[in-house]
């Protein structure tokens, strides 16, 4: 973990159930970082870029992103985060979604997504994947947002 500031996890996920399951399993993996949950793209973008306590203004963050959102596509958010000149373009983004379409996966990596995970329906696999993600989160270095 970051020495100076604890890394916040921003979860953008419209399905409350999924969000809960993800959170539970992250906690079970022993990750205690703060998790902020947003169910739509607009408020999530507001927080990411404009909120005083958001990652752009203060502290590094890791973003968990679902692609199927009610108000916009997750890829739009990904594009905003990874855009040239974005203060968050170095923030790691984990796309965690049900879409396993090859074209969509390629598109996400092209846009700069760091990890793409398909939510398996089989819960054991799902829990396993999230816990492994937790282990992964516990060792990666997350850069601070650019001022």
């Amino acid at each position, binding site marked *: 973990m970051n020495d100076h500031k604890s890394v916040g996890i921003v979860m953008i996920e419209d399905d409350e*159930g*999924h969000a809960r399951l993800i959170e539970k399993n992250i906690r079970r993996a022993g990750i205690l970082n703060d998790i902020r949950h947003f169910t739509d793209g607009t408020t999530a973008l507001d927080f990411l870029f404009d909120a005083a306590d958001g990652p752009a203004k203060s502290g590094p963050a890791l973003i968990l992103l679902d692609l199927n959102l009610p108000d916009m596509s997750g890829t739009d958010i990904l594009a905003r985060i990874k855009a040239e000149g974005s203060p968050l373009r170095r923030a790691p983004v984990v796309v965690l979604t049900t879409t396993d379409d090859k074209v969509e996966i390629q598109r996400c990596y092209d846009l700069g997504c760091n990890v793409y995970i398909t939510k398996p*329906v089989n819960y*054991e696999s799902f*829990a396993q994947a999230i816990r492994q993600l937790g282990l992964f989160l516990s060792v990666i270095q997350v850069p601070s947002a650019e001022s």
Partner: protein
Amino acid sequence: MARISLKLPQSEGRIARWLVAFMTLGFVALAAAAVAIGWITVRNARYTADILHTQDVRQAIATLQVEMEQSETARRGYLLTGLPLFSTAYETTAQRLAPALTALRSSTHDNPRQTARLDLIEPRVGQLRSLRTQSIALVDAGRIGEAQRRFAVDASVPLMRSIRYRLRAMAAEEVRLLEIRSDRQQRSNMLFLSVAGVAALLLLVVAILAILVIRRYTADLGASRDRLHLLNETLEDQVVERTADLSRANDEIQRFAYIVSHDLRSPLVNVMGFTAELAEAAAPLAALIDRAEAIAPEIVTPEARIAAREDLPEAIGFIRASTQKMDRLINAILKLSREGRRSITPEPVDPAAVGDAIVASIQHLIDDRGATVTIDRPLPALVTDRLALEQILSNLIENATKYLQPGRPGVIRLAGTRERNRVILSVIDNGRGIAPGDHQRVFDLFRRAGPQDQPGEGIGLAHVRALAYRLGGTIDVVSTLGEGATFRLNLPFDLRLQDPVA
């Protein structure tokens, strides 16, 4: 689909039937006229013969008369002159009398009236001849005077007159007969002419009718041919149009299937996830009940015990099984839609080679199930997507080895024909067959037919049909329950010429 009837309209058919009936009648009448003409001709010949006979009889009468007169003239000459010239002339002519008489008798023996007259003439001729012989003998002896005296008194002259009279009567009778016979012949000729005229008229009518019938049939044939031609022309377009429609509908369904299956997964993740959470939460509860039962049995109600030990695990088990099944179905739809979205690359393909590859890859399955697969050679080559064709044939052949009639070794054949610019590939088996009511149903997603004794989700044939549509083709099945099935895949010979939509 437009259905074009090639049958003649009812009224036209009736007219054609009448025409044929008239023509038949005409031919019968013509045959009758020919028979009548033949009969009349035969009769005419008989009448002509009768007339000729009458002429002969007249000739014979005339000959007899001439001989009679000539011999009499010779006798009288001899009586007057005593010149031997007349004696010789008499001998010659008198000799001819008897044959002339015989000839006349033989030619009139059929006519009793003439015979009666001849019967009167003949004795008179005899008497006359003896009188003549006497006078000739007297002259020969030089007694000319006595001979002349005798001639003046004997019956020679009345006899001659009587014979002449009777011969004239005979001649008159023959003239009468000639008139009757000529008349009869003339009437017969008239009849012949009229019958011939009627026959000619009939011939004309039949000929006209025949021409009419032929023209009508030719026109009908021409019209049928034109319609058929038109049908053939439009059939191609119809097929292309229909497959384009199918292909569009298919694409839409693929998109729909993709979206639906995709969105169904989301809630399913929750159901599965929270069921697992529930199971995990149920475990400590069950442990608690166990402990409570051990330490303070009085606080454990039977309901609580049953709920923790039976109801909860059972409910969770059912939810799990159902969601797992749903997951499989959704994955199947997803796979189907993903296949549908795969891009199609037409290339020349030899179905026999594709068949060989499939048989090689599932040889162990074929052997295990005790079946044999044969592939006709040569199979018509076509230009299509190799992978899609491989998947279609593989599904069909594998199905054929899977659904065998118990107690009958499976015999599976891959056959093919080329029809214009379509190629029809058939997978023919002798398996358990499919009931006619299920022929459409088996191609529907998640639908299966017959005894459910083989594993499967009812996806294969739906997949096959979706692929067939994508290749601009169709698929159907011909089958009798218990006697095997034939799956016919109808594909365009060249997918590149088929439709640009695919």
